[in-house]
């Protein structure tokens, strides 16, 4: 460990850079939040404080339907991908075997392939097999790209697990599934929770893939927002964007405090 007070480790110019860096990162977000509470119709000039735009957003049936679609998709995708990812992580732990490399490659695929390529490939595939575009296709696509986000934290957690604990359990006559339910699963839980949260955020935020495979009836929140932005900026977009930012913020903070506690 280094002593940060030692002049050897002081880089005064880096401090200035840090301030500029965080300003660059946060000023746009802050401007967005401030303007969402702005009374003025023109969306960029401050007049007085108001909740009007939030009221408009919450009374707009199209936005509510899009939000509902987003939640349905994200919940289903999170549950399915987290269950499969947990199973896969448990299956991958332990002694090396042949299929491991192939699976590592497969699970990395959704992270490495550009989103637009995945989107085009999925669209063509769904159309070719005759699946009608809608919530089902969106959910299938989301489950697939959520798997790696759920998988990686669980796998990392499993790697840090002491194998002696399982040996101790089997010494005490626990059957393999009992050892799993009583030892592995509880210890794995923080990894599973943070994996599920990452999967949930990723699904809620996805725009590109959903935009291609959603079809007419399955508009999600990001797809709806994109449509709103394209027709011009409006105070409603500020309000709904702020709400989406707040949702991400809550989930990131939750996952942060969970990971701090372990």
């Amino acid at each position, binding site marked *: 460990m*280094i002593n940060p007070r030692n002049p*050897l*480790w002081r*880089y005064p110019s*880096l*401090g200035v*850079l840090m301030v500029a*860096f965080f300003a*660059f*990162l*946060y*000023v*746009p*977000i802050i*401007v*967005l939040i401030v303007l969402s509470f702005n009374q003025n119709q*023109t969306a*960029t*000039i401050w007049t007085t404080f108001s909740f009007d735009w939030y009221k408009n957003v919450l009374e707009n049936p199209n936005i509510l339907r899009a939000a509902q679609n987003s939640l349905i998709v994200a919940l289903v995708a999170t549950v399915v991908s987290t269950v*499969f990812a947990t*199973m*896969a992580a448990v*299956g991958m732990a332990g002694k090396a075997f042949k299929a491991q490399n192939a*699976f590592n490659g*497969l699970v*990395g*695929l*959704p992270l*490495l392939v*550009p*989103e*637009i*390529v995945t989107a*085009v*490939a*999925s669209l*063509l*595939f769904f159309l070719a097999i005759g699946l009608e575009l809608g919530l089902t296709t969106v959910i299938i*696509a989301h489950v*697939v790209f959520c*798997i790696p986000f759920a998988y990686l934290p669980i*796998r990392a957690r499993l790697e840090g697990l002491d194998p002696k604990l399982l040996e101790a359990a089997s010494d005490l006559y626990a059957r393999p599934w009992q050892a799993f339910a009583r030892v592995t699963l509880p210890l794995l839980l923080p990894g599973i929770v943070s994996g599920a949260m990452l999967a949930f955020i990723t699904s809620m*935020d996805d*725009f*590109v893939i959903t935009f291609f495979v959603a079809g007419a009836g399955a508009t999600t929140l*990001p797809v709806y*927002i*994109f449509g709103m*932005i394209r027709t011009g*900026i409006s105070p409603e*977009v*500020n309000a709904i*964007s702020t709400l*989406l*930012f707040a949702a*991400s*913020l809550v*989930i*990131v903070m939750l996952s*942060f405090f969970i990971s701090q506690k372990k």
Partner: protein
Amino acid sequence: MKRSSLVGRYALISPAAILIFVFMLLPMLLMALMSWLEAGQFGGVKWGSYTPEAYLKFLFDRDLSDHLVFNTDYLSIFSRSFQLAGITTFLTLLTAFPVAFYIALQTPKHRTWLMLLITIPFWTNLLVRTYAWILLLRNGGLIDSSLHSLGVLNTPINAMYTPIAVQIGLVYAFLPFMVLPIYTSLEKLDWRLLEAAYDLYANRWQTMRRIVIPLAAPGMVAGCILVFVPALGTFFIPELLGGAKTLMIGNLIQQQFGVSRNWPFGAALSFALLAVVLMFMLIYALRFRGKGSLTQ
């Protein structure tokens, strides 16, 4: 290993593996196949009639008498995309490295908080973050009106729908993707190596160049890939911040499934993009074999 336990492990892995195989790998193979088919008149493809038309279209146009004429329109969109993605990678690397280094110098408690501040935008919707820049960049927006009220400028800034707006949007979008992997490789840096270097009369620049940068190299390369790949394939950042003159590959692909209705050409473009990305991955995998992979 016991046979039964191996079967069990395959059974545990298979749902996730089958899903990704069927709904990701197969679709990409299908896409490759479709890029060699003839385009249907109103979208779709003509099954069974194979033609290299989609790949020819990338470089040539057909004139009235059906002769191929060299056409650089699409080539220039590709080169613009590479240029924008390349500059984005360079600028984010230039900013992220000192930032990651500074964070690594802090006490553990400080580090955690600073990293949280970087993680928040990382997990915030990219569409929302891109939209925020419209509020800043447009005429009558925050930058324009502040410059006017300060008297620096009395004409509109006209920053929106320019390559610069797209460039800013790209850097802003992908900056956190660069900081995280570099920080991960600097986090475990053995600072005694730097002390040893100083003891041996190295100056700060030499220590940086000979010790810190080589040790951070895997993180820097991972960061470059994590920025370059999505920046190259981005579609809504140029769509929202750029105009018709700043089309990128992503926009071109999207058009083939929207207004242009040329699926084989869209598939061929996607396949070309994928090939470029896979090439970068392969170079990365060969160069940094065994030093940890991007996904772990």
